[in-house]
């Protein structure tokens, strides 16, 4: 497609995405425009034009970038959710996603507790098995999933923002919230300490804790933020480099 109409399509794509048109609608529009352009060029060539003349005529008949962009942007139903309600997509949805990921982590922990440590008061620590036994591998995998969850959600935020060419303010907000939630998340699993919790497991978020833990929490949040923001930051840099080049 890009080879057919190289100078128009990237510009049109960028304008549509920046105007809030959902990426899937942009893709389909450009794909149909490319087909249309090929038909117009073939028609002009059949009429006796050279390849260059046919392409110029086809380009003129297809319409200017302004006209093509305006026609699509005016159709408000093609706007993406990121453009319509960015506060929800970047302020609320990531928190819900991370909460869901933590819920799965708790479920995973509960299954492991019942399966491998049925008599223990808590699934944390106190095991004497080999490093390679199934229980250890199971709990380590859960631990890494729990640690990586906010970073993965952060990458999702970056991907959404990059696809829609959003201003950095929205993904930055989402990443900050995710970092805060990730750094302050605490799981407690104990038959004695959480007798009424769901399967003796409870979670809490956003608590700053004692003063001594605030600094540690801030460092933790900073690490999550940096790791989660890294791909988006690299993408922004590459975009800026491409524009300057």
């Amino acid at each position, binding site marked *: 497609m890009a080879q057919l109409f190289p100078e128009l399509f990237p510009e049109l794509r960028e304008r549509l995405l920046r105007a809030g048109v959902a990426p899937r609608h942009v893709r389909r*529009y450009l794909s*149909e425009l490319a*087909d*249309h352009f090929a*038909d117009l060029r073939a028609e002009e060539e059949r009429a006796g034009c050279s390849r260059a003349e046919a392409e110029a005529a086809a380009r003129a008949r297809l319409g200017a970038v302004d*006209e093509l962009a305006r026609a699509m942007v005016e159709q408000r139903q093609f706007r993406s959710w990121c453009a319509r309600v960015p506060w929800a997509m970047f302020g609320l949805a990531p928190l819900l996603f991370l909460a869901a990921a933590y819920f799965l982590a708790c479920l995973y922990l509960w299954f492991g507790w019942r399966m491998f440590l049925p008599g223990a008061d808590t699934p944390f620590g106190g095991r004497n098995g080999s490093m390679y036994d199934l229980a250890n591998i199971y709990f380590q995998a859960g631990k890494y999933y729990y640690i990586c969850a906010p970073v993965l959600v952060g990458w999702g935020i970056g991907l959404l923002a990059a696809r829609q060419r959003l201003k950095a303010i929205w993904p930055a907000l989402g990443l900050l919230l995710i970092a805060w939630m990730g750094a302050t998340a605490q799981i407690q699993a104990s038959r004695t300490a959480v007798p009424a919790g769901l399967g003796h497991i409870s979670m809490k978020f956003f608590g700053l804790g004692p003063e001594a833990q605030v600094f540690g929490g801030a460092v933790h949040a900073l690490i999550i933020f940096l790791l989660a923001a890294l791909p988006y930051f690299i993408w922004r840099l590459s975009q800026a480099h491409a524009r300057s080049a």
Partner: protein
Amino acid sequence: MLRMAARESNPNFMNGVPELLILRLLQEQEMYGYEIVQAIRSRSQAVIKVGEGVVYPVLHGLEQEGALRSRRKTVNGRSRIYYSVTPAGAQRLVELASAWSNLATAIQKMLTGAQHGAAIS
């Protein structure tokens, strides 16, 4: 969206015209974008010229509203998206056609009245 041969038409007066023409054409047979534009041009004897690329947002909008359905079809080795009218689209066509017939009749009456007025004076 639509352009008269000589000059740009008033956009307010042209509201609904692209939808009307597209639904009317697709009621007869399914077509893809390029075919639709060529059909509009040839049937209106080039009086109505469509800015060709801008037909697609109209098609996509009608599809989203349920007035059209689309399917991908490979013809002569090329994959194309063909559009056809749904029952809801047929109903929409009836409403749009009726509205435009009324408008055209009213304008025709006014023009005829103006000619009579000129003849009397």
